[in-house]
Every structure is written in C-alpha cells, then in structure tokens.
C-alpha cells in the first residue's frame, strides 16, 4: 500500500505542502471568504426582521381602522334604529290625536243633530195642537154650523190629548 511506505520521502513532502496549502486556505477563508458571507446573511436577516416589523405595524393599523369602522357602523345602526322608533311613536301619537278629534267632532255632530231633531219634534208637536184646534173648529162648523169658541176647542183638544 503506497500510503504506508513511510520510507518514501514524498510522504513527508506531501505533509509539508499539506500544511502550507491548509494554512493558506485557512487564512484566505477566515480573512477574505467568510466575513462577506456573514455580513450578507446579517443584512438579510435584518432586512427580513425590519420588513416583518413593518408588516406587523401595518396589520395593527389596519386592525385599528377596521375596529373603528365597525364601531362607527354599530353607532350608525343604533342611531337609525332610534330614529325609526321615534318616528313610529310620533306617527302613533298623531294617529291617536286625529282619532280623538274625529270622535269628538262626530260626537258634537251627533249631539247637534239630536238637538235639531228634538227641536223639530217639539215644533211639530206644537203645530199638531194648532192644526187639531183648527181642524176641530172647521169640522164642528161643518157638522153643526156653529164655530166653537177657540178657547173651548183648545181645552177640549188638550183634554183629549191627555186622555
């Protein structure tokens, strides 16, 4: 196995060059290659964190606006409902008032009509007495040819009316 031929001077020189190359690679990697990677990764992480923060802030803002809008909507709804309720009550009150007025007017008209009827009846009753007296006078004149005295006829008629 060539790896175990330790008499071969190339094995030692291989190790020498290994140390040189590995050492050089370590210097290149640690001084030149790795710092930019670290800074790029850091920048990216910072950027992502910042963007996330911004997104979170925007979301909070949107949430607040949403809550405000909902509150305003609820308020508007409550106001509208109150207005509707007031309008209904007002309409009801007006209707009741109108009804009462109507009833009062009708009652007044009924009363007036009744009064008129009573008056007419009284007038008619009075007229009937007169007519009866005249009729009795005329009838008596025809029957017996004597025109009775007005006062006697009136007394007789009222006696009959009472009888």
């Amino acid at each position: 196995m060539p790896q175990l031929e330790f008499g071969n001077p190339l094995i030692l020189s291989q190790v020498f060059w290994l140390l040189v190359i590995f050492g050089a690679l370590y210097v290149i990697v640690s001084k030149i290659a790795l710092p930019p990677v670290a800074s790029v990764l850091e920048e990216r992480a910072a950027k992502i964190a910042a963007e996330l923060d911004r997104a979170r802030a925007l979301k909070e803002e949107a949430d607040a606006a949403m809550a405000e809008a909902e509150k305003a909507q609820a308020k508007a709804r409550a106001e509208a409902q109150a207005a509707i309720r007031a309008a209904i009550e007002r309409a009801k009150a007006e209707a009741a008032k109108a009804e009462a007025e109507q009833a009062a007017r009708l009652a007044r008209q009924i009363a007036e009509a009744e009064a008129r009827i009573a008056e007419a009846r009284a007038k008619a009753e009075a007229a009937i007495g007169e007519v009866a007296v005249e009729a009795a006078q005329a009838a008596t004149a025809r029957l017996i040819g004597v025109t009775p005295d007005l006062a006697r006829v009136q007394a007789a008629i009222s006696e009959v009316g009472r009888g």
Partner: protein
Amino acid sequence: MAAEGKTIDALSQFALSPIVAGFTNSNLYMLIAAGAISALMILGMKPRAMVPGRLQSLAEVAYEFVAGMVKEQVGKEGMKYFPFVFTLFMFILFGNMLGMLPYAFTFTSHIAVTVTLALIVFILVTAVAIAIHGAKFFGYFFPEGAPVALAPIIIPVEIISYLSRVVSLSVRLFANMVAGHVMLKVFATFVVLLGGLGSLGLVGAAAPLALNVALVGFEFLVAFLQAYVFAILTCIYLHDAVHLH
C-alpha cells in the same frame, strides 16, 4: 493503470508521484481543492444579492451548515473556531469529492494527510483547553467525585482515550476513502476483465458494472459523511475543551 495483463491492481491509484521537486500529485489536488473552495466562497458571494443565485446559495448553505454545526455543538462562544472548522470541513469534503472524478487523486486516502489533519485538530483542542482552563485542564483526566483509589486505572484510561482521538479521527477517514476507492477499482477491473472474455463475459460484466454504479452513489454519500464526521468530532472535542465536561 486499470488492469495490467490479467491482474487486479487496486493500489497504484494511491501512489505519490512528484510534479515539481517535492510537490506531489496529492498536493496538486489539495491546491485544486483550496482553489475551488476559495473560488466558491469569494466568487459565489461577489453579487452579495439579497435573493441569492445558485453559486451564492451554495456558498451560503456551506456557511450556514458549518456555522449551525459549530453553534449547536460548541455553543455561541465556539464561533471563534468556526473559520477553522469551516476550512477543515470544506478541505476534506472537496478532497473526498474531487477524488470521485475519474483519474483524480484522493488526498484524503493518505494516512499521512489524515494524521496531519487530526494532529492539527488535537493540538488546537489541547491548546484551547489549556488556554481557557490552565492547570485545571489536567483534571479532565480524573473526573471529579471518582474514588481516589481508582486513579491508577482511570487516569491512564482517560489519557489513552484522549490520545486515541488522533487515531480514530485519522484512521476513520483514511480507511473509508481507501476502502471505497479500492472497491470501485476492483469492480471496475472485473468489468474490464470479464468484458474481454467474449460475448458470455459481456453478460457477466453487467453485474459488477451495476454494482459499481451503486457504489459510486454510495461513495458520494461516504465522501460527504466522512467530512461531516471529521468536522462534527472536531466540534465535540472543541466543546470538551471549552466547557471541560
């Protein structure tokens, strides 16, 4: 290199050959790996885009994968060692992956290389532990509350287990890479040898060919997994060094 005559030659793929003086073919692939890692990280991150493109995504995924591993295993204070773990992980990963290319040399299949990497980890971890905890570090070898009578047993066992980290780290990576590449080479040689036996042999060659296709997929998994294991064990050792149990 595949099959000289009728023999199976699975080991010559590991042979070192000098390119310039002491600079071997193995070192060439280390250089390619280091160049590819630097290119990926530096060119990939050049756009510095907020929404990364393909190459930048790859660079970022590699960064975050290793950074997550270090953070999870060692903790926040372990991020000091992140560049080291990143270099180690990427170097081994690219070494393993480059080895999957045909005709490429797999430098992680050399015990000398894996031992060197393991020793770097071992020395770093020990230095970190001593730097942070001073003399208290040696208490690591004798857990608090253990009966003093057992010290002659516990202390040597703890020291051996501490030292064996180098062995387990290096041999695991080395053995996995060697075994995988030997198997690939052996079955590939079967395909060539059976294919040379005429029409019946061509039918027979289908089996090792199919097996090799599966093995290549498996080896890609192993290539990643071994780099991951090496890096995560390094993190665990660093955790021990920083927190001392």
